[in-house]
């Protein structure tokens, strides 16, 4: 463990007993005006987006745009290769016999949309992110098992470790921990 002077505070973590408690806590944190907070759970909890005051995810737009680009690219590629760059008449069909090109167009639309959804999701979630202040906490490890946590980030404009600690205690948080690390 390093000396205290080189450490910084990352966030304050509080544990809650159940999905229902976490949902109530999220509403209270939101109403108290905190912005940089998160609710950690082993599985997604229904209704949590509204409780935290989050907008709908943008992944859909990314996937949609990627899918359209994929489809357009596929049709362009097939048109260009078979009419411009390498025009060969096969079984008497026109060079741009587009009905035959639908399958590859459809396939690449799906492929690009899927890549867009996955890469877009990782990007919006800032993943992979192998370092995070929360990983300093030993108890936080239980989020992926059966525990429910609220964390309020030190970057929040209203952050003050002591006040946040008291606040989280007042809304029913347990095992409150101020997370420090190098």
């Amino acid at each position, binding site marked *: 463990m390093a000396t205290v002077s080189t450490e910084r505070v990352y966030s304050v973590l509080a544990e809650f007993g*159940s*999905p*229902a*408690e*976490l*949902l109530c806590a999220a509403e209270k944190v939101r109403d108290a005006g905190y912005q940089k907070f*998160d*609710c*950690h*759970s*082993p*599985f*997604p*909890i*229904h209704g*949590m987006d509204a409780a*935290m005051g*989050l907008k709908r*995810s*943008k*992944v*859909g737009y990314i*996937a949609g745009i990627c899918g359209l680009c994929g489809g357009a690219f596929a049709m362009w590629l*097939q048109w260009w*290769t*078979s009419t411009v*760059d*390498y025009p*060969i008449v096969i*079984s008497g069909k026109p060079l741009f*016999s587009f009905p035959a*090109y639908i*399958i*590859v167009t*459809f*396939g*690449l639309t*799906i*492929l690009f949309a*899927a*890549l867009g*959804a*996955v890469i*877009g*999701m*990782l990007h*919006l*979630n800032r*993943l*992979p*992110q*192998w*370092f*995070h202040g929360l990983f300093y906490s030993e108890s936080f*490890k239980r*989020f*992926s*098992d*059966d525990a429910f946590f609220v*964390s309020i980030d030190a970057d929040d404009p209203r952050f003050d470790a002591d006040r946040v600690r008291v606040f989280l205690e007042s809304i029913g948080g347990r095992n409150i921990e101020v997370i420090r690390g190098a």
Partner: protein
Amino acid sequence: MSVSEKIENGPGFEPPLITGGQTFASVSRKISEITERKTTITWLLAFGAAVSVLLLLFGSVGYLFWEGTGIWGLNVPVAWGFDIVNFVFWVGIGHAGTLISAVLFLFRQRWRTSINRFAESMTLFAVICALLFPSIHVGRAWLLYWVFPIPNQMGMWPNFRSPLLWDVFAVSIYFTCSLMFWYVGLIPDLATLRDRAVTRVRRIVLGILSFGWRGGNRQWKNYELAYLILAGISTPLVLSVHSVVSTDFATSIIPGWHTTIFPPYFVAGAIFSGFAMVMTLAVIARRLLHLEDFITLGHLEKMNKIMLVTGMMVGYAYGCEFFIAWYSGNIYESFAFVNRAFGPYAWAYWIMVSCNVLVPQVFWIKKWRTSILVMFVASILINVGMWFERFVIVMSLARDYLPSSWDYYKPTIWDIATFVGSFGLFFTLFLLFAQFVPMIAMSEVKAVLPAADPHHGGKH
């Protein structure tokens, strides 16, 4: 009968999806422990057997590359033999994964959570086996990159009007999308394993693989939508992939192949065989790894019902083909079907009909539908039948328009060795998965436990 019993037997009653009074912690523990404990003797024996069979594949493919496709029983008129039969067989098996993970997800069939990881993994491995066969059938495997639109010094491009090229795209895109679906689903579970890790190596490896997942709702929000989108766009893939595979046959002018019923008929058969393979593996894994609380009899019964439905669709297609062959008035078409049922390959035809049409009828009876032994035997017979279905279709080639060119196709020892070897590849991959990857999607199973509902017993 008491009131509660009446409710339990009445319509609309859903028995619990997960039994044994599981809690969030017990789900993590029971599923993770399988990947954390030392390998058991049973696993080692099974793995040794699978790898031995895999070596058979390496040997036969190595000899194929050395000697060429002449070692197979292929010849004119049967220029497509075991290789395409096996390809279609394995791709078909690979259909249950997406059906379970995507289609059942969209239909909010929450029972899928116990078997989706399982089925998705099986899909990946089956598609790997499937991709093997056309890749080695090209003869010069080192020129395989010609199938992709890669700019090259010859100034050539693939022929995008060919169903064989559609296949390349359909199957490789299917594999890529299934892999992404599988891995995205794995991220929260890998985080669970990471957080349980006791050794440094596991902590580092699982830490890297889980991308630093923190389970915050800001992450879940994007994650859930991405998963929904993947499910939504993979759903047409379930229908399209095997439809495209069927166009390999249907766009040709061979009697018995040139029919419009092929795409839906192939898709139904694919789902049928895929569920049968999931069933075979689920019954074994459930017993060996003590997963009875997660993969309950209820799950197995639902899968049997799907097999009954898709088996009837396949049976309908067999009948319909015969009807159309007669109704078309085309002598070649009629001959092809009479020849299937009564010609030199009649033995294969009747194996197919018995296994695919008659065997699933046992699932009408609840007692048999819920009997592990019956469903295990039936699932194996169904896959035998589905292999023969593809064999019967491909053997239409043996008697085409000109009687002078008729022949009787027989596989050589190398055809059989490669086919058997592909099972070695499949089971090697599956056993590695069963030992090192959580077999059941923990975060999804936790979400369907009663305690996961925020309205459960709370005041909210």
